[in-house]
């Protein structure tokens, strides 16, 4: 049997693949890399693309799409820390802006709510006054 290497593909939301393989291909930022058993330790960032796992023994090649992540190679273990989300600096920036804006909106809403409560209190007071006046008028008439 040919030499094999243990491959783990995990994302933050769950494990995607775990098993032995003869070769792993991954889309690293500097170009695609192929990892065979006893590859020297390596850590690299991945760009969006396809991770292929060659199981050997005429088994079908396994394909996994990753939208980025990190590849770590130890002498007998390959780990792909896959992103499930598409990551880019400006996209992240936009998401952060969005989160900030939502917080500000929520804070603004609070003041709106407060004003609503105040208006409601004022309305109740006015209604009570009106009722009192009506009662006085009725009392005068009879």
């Amino acid at each position, binding site marked *: 049997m040919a030499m094999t290497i243990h491959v783990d593909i995990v994302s*933050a939301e*769950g494990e995607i693949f775990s098993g032995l393989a003869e070769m792993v291909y991954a889309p690293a930022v500097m170009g695609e890399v192929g990892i065979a058993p006893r590859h020297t330790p390596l850590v690299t*960032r991945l760009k969006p693309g396809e991770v292929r796992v060659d199981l050997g023994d005429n088994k079908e090649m396994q394909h996994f799409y990753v939208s980025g992540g990190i590849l770590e190679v130890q002498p007998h273990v390959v780990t792909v820390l896959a992103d*499930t989300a598409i990551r880019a600096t400006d996209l*992240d920036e936009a998401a*952060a802006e969005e989160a900030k804006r939502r917080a500000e909106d929520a*804070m603004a809403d*609070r003041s709106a709510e407060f004003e609503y409560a105040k208006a409601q209190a004022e309305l109740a007071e006015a209604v009570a006054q009106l009722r009192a006046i009506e009662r006085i008028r009725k009392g005068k008439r009879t």
Partner: protein
Amino acid sequence: MAGAKEIRTQIASIKNTSKITKAMEMVAASKMRKAQNRMAATRPYADKMRNVIGHLFHAHPEYKHTFMIEREVKRVGYIIVSSDRGLCGGLNNNLFRKLFKEMKELRDSGTEVDFCTIGNKALGFFSRFGGNIVSQATHLGDAPHIEDLIGTVKVMLDAYAEGKIDRIYIAYNNFVNTMTQSPSVEQLVPIPPKEVEELKHHWDYIYEPDSKDVLDNLLGRYVESLVYQAVVENGACEQSARMVAMKSASDNAGELINELQLIYNKARQAAITQEISEIVGGAAAV
């Protein structure tokens, strides 16, 4: 027999309520199982990442990332994970109470506090409390996705990197078992060194493009994955707390119905007795 009809409608309404609570209990039970599975699924990622980070630190002890450096604490950030919906017992309140106590101590010692809230309940509570909320995320649903959290967490991490805040904590409910959830507050950044120092042997890597770039990426993602884990765990807590709360509500409703049924039967009996004695009395008079 004036009260009988009222009692009957009351029994009917309590029965309806108990039907709802029972249904909610069952829904929560099935959701809880799913949430627990999800919780287990997030572990390997964080474990693997911790492993890689551990190796990196052993290989490069001289390079200190900002996320690893302890600073004097003048302002702290809290990422607060809560549920979106209520009816889950004291889950959120226990957490908020614990936080409140810590915050009071911090304020007394002159430390400012910023918040980042996840979930409706935390947002409502801390905006009323008058905290400075810098970012928020709500409506994550039963199966939260990490992309919904990236922005929210990034606001905090950016503030840390710029030196606006000196420490970030995460507050969430820890899932002990179905009956027990314990509110916990943990330090997120700077990353406590003990978490990355448990390695037997280590080696250096080849880095592409370079070590700094890789490390920056890794640490950001590591923090995100911890937050994600907390959110998922809190979700499991929410469901189990709701299940327990709804179970006790259904039990209470059952007790209430029994009591009312007894009162109703007594009233009915009394009415019948009275009617009979009236008839007998009437017959005797004739």
